[in-house]
């Protein structure tokens, strides 16, 4: 294995008050006072929809773009003033699989190895090692042009790992991949973390963040709207959910009105499945109250389920609840 030079002191990623504005696209993708801290050896998920500022953050942290203000340190070095030291310790897997179509898979890895200043022999050894690890040995001598989407992604990931980075940035790694390709990429990222690499992952998929990330920062329109472990975030908005499915959707409205008494937040009415989803703070009490209510109305439900909220629901709550400052959730979610 080829190790990067030792990191500087401090957390793997330390971002304070980062600002970036794109004068030509006022409609988003900028950043407003971003704070972010990623501890070494963890996977951090940066979660948000298109235009939330995820890629902007990654581009600033990988020295590709300059911030307008604030400070950012990666692996202990300042991205603005010590770019080269930062670049010696990071790997980047960008949104597009940044591989050279015209070259073979092996040539791609050789080139990256040499540009990382490995000797020719070391670059060759490393290329073969990575090709094997990403099951690309058979395709090694073929032009990347003919690779499948999953293969390109794997090669892309391999290219970022030629010199095992201290911090790996992965920008929407599975966008456009089929489930098979997605699983392969997830497995590769998990394996990396096992070897001590810190990963900053951006994704639009809550499932992906839930699967991979130790901690999550949720972004919306360049602002942090929530952060914490997946569990903390799920608890941060009213604990559990009660899903009750009725035999007749006509009853939904009446039940929703009555359930207001014990709902801890905004309920979701799904007419199509005749389901009412109620966020609750205390599930036992809520369950008792719901049963009483159903008994009063003489409704025999098809199904009642108690469950943890999905990150989708957390995200919707955090972004749609107006008047709820982001800082509140930050503090609640922070240990």
């Amino acid at each position, binding site marked *: *294995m*080829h*190790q*990067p*030079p030792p990191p500087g002191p401090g957390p793997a990623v330390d971002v304070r008050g980062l600002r*970036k504005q*794109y004068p030509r696209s006022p409609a988003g993708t900028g950043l407003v006072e971003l704070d972010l801290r990623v501890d070494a050896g963890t996977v951090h998920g940066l979660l948000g929809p298109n235009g939330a500022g995820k890629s*902007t953050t990654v*581009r600033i942290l*990988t*020295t*590709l*773009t300059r911030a307008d203000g604030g400070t950012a340190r990666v692996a202990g070095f300042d991205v603005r003033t010590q770019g*080269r030291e930062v*670049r*010696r310790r*990071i*790997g*980047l897997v*960008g*949104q*597009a*699989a*940044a*591989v*050279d*179509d*015209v*070259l*073979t898979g092996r*040539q791609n890895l050789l*080139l*990256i190895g*040499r*540009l*990382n*200043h*490995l*000797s020719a022999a*070391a670059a060759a050894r490393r290329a073969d090692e990575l090709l094997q690890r990403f099951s690309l040995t058979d395709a090694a001598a073929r*032009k990347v042009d003919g690779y499948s989407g999953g293969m390109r992604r794997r090669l892309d990931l391999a*290219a970022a790992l030629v*010199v095992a980075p201290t911090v790996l940035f992965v920008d929407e790694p599975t966008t456009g991949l089929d489930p098979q390709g997605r699983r392969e990429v997830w497995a590769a990222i998990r394996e990396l973390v096992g070897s001590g690499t810190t990963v900053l992952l951006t994704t639009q998929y809550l499932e992906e963040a839930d699967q991979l990330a130790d901690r999550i920062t949720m972004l919306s329109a360049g602002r942090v709207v929530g952060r914490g472990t997946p569990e903390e975030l799920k608890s941060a908005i009213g604990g559990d959910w009660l899903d009750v499915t009725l035999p007749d959707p006509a009853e939904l409205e009446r039940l929703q009105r009555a359930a207001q008494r014990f709902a801890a937040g905004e309920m979701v009415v799904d007419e199509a499945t005749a389901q009412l989803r109620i966020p609750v703070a205390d599930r036992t009490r809520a369950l008792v109250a719901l049963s009483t209510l159903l008994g009063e109305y003489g409704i025999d439900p098809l199904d009642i389920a108690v469950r943890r909220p999905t990150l989708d629901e957390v995200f919707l709550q955090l972004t749609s609840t107006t008047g709820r400052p982001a800082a509140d959730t930050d503090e609640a979610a922070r240990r």
Partner: protein
Amino acid sequence: MSLIATHHDELTVRGTGSALGDAWLLTRRQFWHWRAQPGAFLVGLFFPVLVTFMFGALFGGAIAGPDTDYAGNYYLFLMPGIFTMAMLFGLESTMTAVNADAAKGVTDRFRSLPISGVAVVLGRCIADMINSVLGLVLLMVTGVLLGWSWSNGLAGAAAAFGLLMLLRFSLLWVGIFVGVTARGPESVAAVQILVWPVSMLSNLFVDPATMPGWLGAIASVNPLSATASATRELFGNPGWNDGSGLSEHALTLAICWPIAISLVFAPLAVRAYRRLGG
């Protein structure tokens, strides 16, 4: 223990990167491209040869009329024009390659590596200049086979070669600038079309004296005309001399124009490159 020692070895290897060494690695990447796509490489190289035949054999008889300096051997006039045109056409390959790398994220990957930004531009620069030298040598051989020759000694020919390379060097920055800032393949295609009128509207193929006055004036001030005239002079080939300052000082202009173009476009190209993606 041995594992740690190995790490240490690799560490020292990683330290020794120079901008020139990195640039050379990226130049070699271009060689790999040529080897992987011999078709595209050869088409790019031979296209000016095709244009030589087109003008020489197809139009040459009509252009090189009996009262021209080059009656009967249009190639004496044509070849320096073709050489100059080839330098302009080189801009296309620069632009296309730069644009493709930027669009695919390959440039971003290079920029996230511990190499200097200069290395990426320099690598492109060296590769394209090598390509142009090859193309120019091929064209000179073609010219000689068709009856073109130079009569001003080796020093003159070498100076002409240098002037052509200077022009190519200045257009390199234009190519990088347009390649980085172009929105996509469409804008690149627009430039590919534009190089035709730009090369025609000059003295590369036809003496501006035969054009309507206003058109001839535009053709005469075209920087390409300066390089073509100067190289004709240096090769000892019959040329264009209308007695105006533009033709009298073609040599000076052929040096000044590329320097001016470089001074404008090199900083623009570097700036656009740094700003890539915001």
